[in-house]
């Protein structure tokens, strides 16, 4: 496990993983999008609106998976001081936030024809909105320190606190929702017919491999940036050492 801690080793693995992830993502999108958007049958209840689901469910799947990845890597970073785990968490979080936003937007677009309004305090939409705030908090905290290492640790602790709280928040919001709006159509209305499963799985696969490919790209650029930063810093140190101290 610790060999991933070595950036040089990691770069080698990353170079090997990237083409596969990017290629898989491309193939799955090319295969999945035409089926999802054109050839798959419209739902007998929801009509063509059902096609939003392919993007919505895939985004929602990734927003949860990425939060899990952020929390697990934050734990690994805090417990084993594993620097790559920190980089994975930091590089994943903005993508998680974007997928959460995408899930929210597609959820609202789906809601407009189904509910007649863009926003309903549906349990799942509300939980997604709160998860979006948790992502924003994580990103803001990581960015709020002059010393980036402090930001890393603070954000990692926050990610763990958030992962303990997420089930509680979800349970509370669901309960609150049934208390106030028992009659509303749930997102559960999106029950999945068998004919829709193939495009759904293709799209989820495409989204997931897209995430992996972009993650590897972001990690690579982060490592290179660190390398440049350190080269500059040590240049400064060398220059300072050359001058006699006062």
């Amino acid at each position, binding site marked *: 496990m610790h060999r991933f*801690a*070595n*950036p040089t080793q990691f770069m080698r693995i990353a170079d090997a993983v990237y083409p596969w992830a990017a290629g898989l993502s491309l193939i799955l999108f090319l295969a999945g999008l035409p089926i999802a958007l054109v050839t798959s049958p419209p739902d007998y209840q929801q009509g063509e609106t059902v096609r939003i689901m392919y993007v919505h469910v895939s985004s929602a799947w990734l927003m949860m998976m990425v939060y899990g990845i952020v929390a697990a890597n934050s734990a690994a970073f805090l417990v084993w001081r594993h620097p790559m785990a920190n980089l994975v968490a930091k590089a994943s979080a903005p993508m998680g936030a974007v997928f959460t936003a995408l899930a929210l937007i597609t959820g609202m677009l789906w809601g407009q024809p189904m509910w007649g309004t863009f926003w309903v305090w549906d349990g799942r939409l509300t939980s997604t909105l709160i998860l979006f705030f948790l992502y924003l908090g994580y990103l803001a905290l990581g960015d709020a320190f002059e*010393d980036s*290492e402090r930001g890393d640790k603070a954000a990692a602790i926050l990610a763990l606190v958030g992962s303990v709280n997420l089930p509680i928040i979800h349970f509370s919001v669901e309960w609150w929702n049934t208390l106030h709006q028992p009659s509303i159509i749930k997102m559960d209305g999106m029950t999945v017919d068998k004919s829709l499963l193939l495009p759904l799985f293709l799209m989820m696969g495409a989204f997931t491999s897209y995430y992996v490919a972009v993650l590897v790209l972001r990690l690579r650029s982060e490592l290179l940036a660190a390398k440049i*930063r*350190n080269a500059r810093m040590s240049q400064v140190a*060398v220059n300072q*050492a050359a001058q006699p*101290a006062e």
Partner: protein
Amino acid sequence: MVRPMGGNGDSFQIGGFSGTGLACRRGGRLVFTGLAFNLPPGGALVLRGANGSGKTTLLRLMAGLSGAAAGQLAWDKIPIDDPDAHAARLRFIGHLDAVKPALTVAENLEFWMSLWRGAGLNAGISQALDAFDMRPLAGFPARLLSAGQRHRLALARLMVAPAPLWLLDEPGNALDESSLAALARTIAAHRASGGAVVVASHGAAFVEDGATLNLGAFTPTDASHWSEE
């Protein structure tokens, strides 16, 4: 709670303090690397070096406030792995005085004494008040103190409960001559009873025959230190 107890004047559980292969990273930069020291009981170590050479960083590392990027600290040749147990045997005086302006001088000292020694030892602060000539100020709120008096109050904390290891960051700052002499006497008495002291200082007139550690010698100069391994 494991802690070296003893009334004022008693000797402590004496032990040597040492470190090997220490490296520390601040803001992504390696401040020092390959640093080693050995401090016997009764010994003194004076840290020297230019601004940015890591004197404060090393003191905070010795206190267990920050972690080392590499290396090991040891007490009595046993590696230190419990930060709380290590904290209980040291006193740290940093740049900040940790003085509460709303409390009186005596209340400030009593708080630290009862935190470090347990409550109910109210007689103990008189020695600390005398050591840095704070007795006339004992009843005053600390907000009325000057910068030098606040610093003396911070130093007086050293006397409220004995601890075998003192870590002092520029303890002579803002002190007048008689206070500097008092500081020198306090450190000498601490060492005479077997205590060890580490001082980061530009002018070390208040430490007699201490070993000197020049941090400039451990500053890394090449760019190869960005990986963790």
